[in-house]
């Protein structure tokens, strides 16, 4: 009897201990964290609109299951904003732990909103992950500044993106490499250019890209929008759009809903110029039978906007340790290499390739980036993202002026 009682008490203590530890997984004590993570199921809410990305996530799931005993469930979302809403709804309802979201694929205004509202796991965990040592913090400053907002270790960098344009060289080899040239080109080729409708992410990025080129002093974009004379700064952009829209697809009365439908319209021959927030987009589309293999990428003379996308853990995540294991695995040279392979996904790495161990570095250097992908040097200048408030305000102005 006594024996049973002791054993029960012991078990009880162990469980309490385990629960305590699960509340505060510590990435600096990695072996301990791996033990906590074992057997957990990580619900990763990530945009599910791209089959090849879904396949990559499925691969990562198989790997961490095998290596660390962590199960991954990819919750395919249509709009990351809805995940923010969901975490918020849980906070509203007082679900302070055991929440339904363990990891979110995120950046920009979604991150800014979650950080501001305290919806993220608050101890800076991301820069303590073992593989963070390989991240190219000095060469790619956006890995710790998400749209100018310091990440403070609240999200772990996952991949790099840069706005890249592409066109079918079988139709024309002449490409506009500035906003002014784009306007002239559109006037000469009416109905063959469009951009995704803001607040689509890439559509809003196009607005910011145009703003960069048209604004007199781009440095104001690094400050919050309300600290600048917003109307004066954006006036040239609106004047530009007023001129551009009449020459655009459907005369600017309808817009593709996202970059995928932009690509689809290009495949249909309705549009001649496409763009995406991924340098490998054109190569991928060719491999996917979507675009002809005469499509090639190009960038603008004065540079294009680039940023980093991340994974973050909500404050009330149920499997925090498992989520960290996954985030760390996603940053590993092996996972990053696979992600950059255009046959898999083609998303550029966040790591500093030169600082990697020799074998890993060699693999990266030997990677064939794909027929329509520009090399890192050809990608030209990378412009930093403006402060997220610009995106919010630009979307409002755009909606009022062109969206209704």
């Amino acid at each position, binding site marked *: 009897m006594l024996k049973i009682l002791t054993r029960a008490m012991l078990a009880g203590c162990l469980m309490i201990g385990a629960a305590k530890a699960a509340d505060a997984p510590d990435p600096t004590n990695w072996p301990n964290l791996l033990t906590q993570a074992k057997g957990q199921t990580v619900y990763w809410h990530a945009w599910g609109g791209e*089959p090849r990305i879904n396949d990559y996530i499925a691969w990562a799931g198989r790997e961490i299951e095998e290596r660390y005993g962590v199960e991954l469930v990819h919750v395919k979302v249509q709009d990351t904003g809805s995940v923010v*809403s969901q975490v918020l709804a849980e906070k509203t309802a007082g679900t302070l732990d055991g929440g339904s979201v363990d990891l979110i694929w995120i950046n920009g205004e979604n991150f800014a909103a979650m950080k501001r509202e305290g919806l993220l796991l608050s101890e800076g965990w991301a820069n303590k992950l073992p593989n963070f040592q390989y991240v190219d913090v000095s060469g790619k400053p956006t890995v710790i500044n998400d749209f100018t907002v310091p990440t403070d270790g609240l999200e772990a960098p996952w991949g790099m993106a840069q706005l890249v344009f592409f066109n079918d060289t079988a139709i024309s080899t002449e490409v506009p490499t500035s906003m002014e040239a784009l306007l002239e080109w559109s006037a000469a080729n009416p109905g063959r250019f469009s951009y995704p409708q803001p607040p689509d992410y890439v559509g809003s990025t196009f607005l910011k890209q145009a703003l960069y080129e048209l604004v007199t002093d781009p440095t104001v974009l690094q400050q919050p929008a309300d600290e600048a004379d917003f109307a004066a700064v954006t006036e040239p952009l609106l004047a530009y759009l007023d001129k551009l829209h009449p020459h655009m697809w459907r005369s600017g009365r309808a817009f593709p809903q996202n970059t995928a439908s932009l690509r689809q319209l290009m495949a249909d021959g309705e549009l001649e110029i496409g763009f995406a927030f991924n340098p490998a987009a054109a190569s991928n589309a060719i491999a996917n039978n979507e675009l002809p293999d005469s499509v090639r990428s190009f960038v603008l003379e004065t540079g294009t906007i680039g940023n980093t996308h991340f994974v973050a853990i909500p404050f009330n995540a149920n499997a925090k340790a498992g989520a960290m294991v996954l985030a760390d695995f996603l940053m590993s040279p092996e996972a990053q290499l696979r992600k950059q392979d255009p046959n898999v996904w083609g998303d550029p790495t966040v790591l500093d390739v030169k600082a990697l161990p020799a074998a890993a570095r060699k693999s990266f250097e030997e990677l064939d980036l794909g027929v329509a992908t520009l090399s890192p040097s050809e990608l030209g200048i990378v412009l930093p993202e403006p402060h997220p408030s610009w995106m919010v305000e630009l979307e409002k102005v755009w909606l009022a002026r062109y969206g209704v």
Partner: protein
Amino acid sequence: MLKHIPALTLFFLIGPVLAGLMGVLLPAFGVLPSLGGTSLTLDYFQNILSTPGVIRSSFLSLAVGLITTAISLGIVMLLIAGWHGTRFFKLLQNLLSPLLSVPHAAAAFGLAFLIAPSGWLMRLVSPWATGVTRPPDWLIVNDPLALSMMAGLIAKEVPFLLLVSLAALPQSDLRRKTVLAATLGYGPVSGFFKTSFPLIYRQIRLPVLAVLAYATSVVDVAIILGPSTPAPLSVRLLQWMNDPEITERFRASAGAMMQLGVTALALLVWFAAEQLARRTGMRAINRGHRTFADQSLRRIIAVLAVISSAMVLAGIIVLGIWSIAGFWRFPDALPVSFTLANWSRQAMGLETPLQNTLTIGVAATAIAIVLTLACLEQETRSGKTATSRALVLLYIPLIVPQVSFLFGLNILVLQMGGRANVLLVIFTHVIFVLPYVYLSLADPWRAWDTRYAAVAQGMGHSANRVFWSVRLPMLLTPVLTAAAVGFAVSIGQYLATLLIGSGRFPTITTEAVALASGGDRRVIGVYALIQALLPFIGFAAALSLPALLYRNRRAMRANG
């Protein structure tokens, strides 16, 4: 036990709707303490009204709802008037029935692929007939007047209203009335509208109102086919709900109330139109005109009906072609190459969504069937038939816009400490499945000859034994058909699965919508086909199972 089932059923249906509405009502007026909203305010309504284009969005929703419903009803009534009893009608009926099982989103995708300037229709006639090798810059899909959206909705609602009307026909004694009217010199269409229409309309009124409410608040079809500058209110409402800005929560709640208002306004306008139609109709009857361009009207409507059903069918076919397409550019009528790669690539990811779809669909349907049978049996035993007021309650989940109450319901579930679990998702599905199951089963159930029960009870069999051994087996076909209808409804649920399940229970439909955001037609084709195929399998099973079980029972086959 059985006595309390009807009340329990209504609780299942109405409780969540009311609770969900409460969940958005308070935040709409600024009350949501956990977000710092503690005082009543009308600010958020003012905020909504001053949002650019919101009036136009609301007007769009209203107009789409009213026009879609009026045209669908008109086509169906004119079809029955002009063609009922002919071989053409039978053919059309067979053509339209399977369309009922095609989910709205799949039909909308198909239509979009068909009618776009670079769509299949244009490809079929280019360049040999049109001379174009590049698609013209015509604004067809997503047009600001929502014409293509209405076309898509009408193509889907016509089969629904037709089947509902056909179910109502036996009680309206159509054939005798038409013959009688004809002997008085009335044309078939005029005769129908002056004799049979009022009776049929009274019976299909609630389904018509459900169509109206649905069309004013539909989300998926609006995203695919509807205008985007601005979009109809329901689409914008969803955007507000998904906005990471926390304060948008209040605006989204106010928007949800506004959506409710738009739907209510549409119903009011419809009621007014009913009154007007009744008065002018009475006057027309009294005047006694015998024909009103009957013959030409008859032909036009036949053409319209054929086009609308052919569009959906062709849309599904083109989806199928996309799902096996290799490289396919404008203006080729067919892909350069075919490949099964799209299917094999998706096959891996299909297992979980398929499992979830089946689990949730079968469970929700089973619950709905059990509750419906219990209600109907209780009705038989107590001798009280459901009053028309109870029927209105049944329609509430179909009339209150989903976007308006599911969001509030989600918050409520969380507040009660409930985690996303599959049971909650199933019960949320029941809210939408049950009305359809009840409505499709009630008529055949009540039409059953109760003298069979008298015979069996006279032999000494209890009411329970009569139910299990006589009534249920005799009504197996309608019960299974109702189950297939319920299953199809469950498969089509998007918001309910997503919001209440916190996205943890991906189904074919949620996956289809998520993948659709990637715009890859090949993938959309794969999912849309599966989405259309599942309900079809359900209906096929509902028809073939009794045929197999009762292969030696002629009367049972004639029954089906």
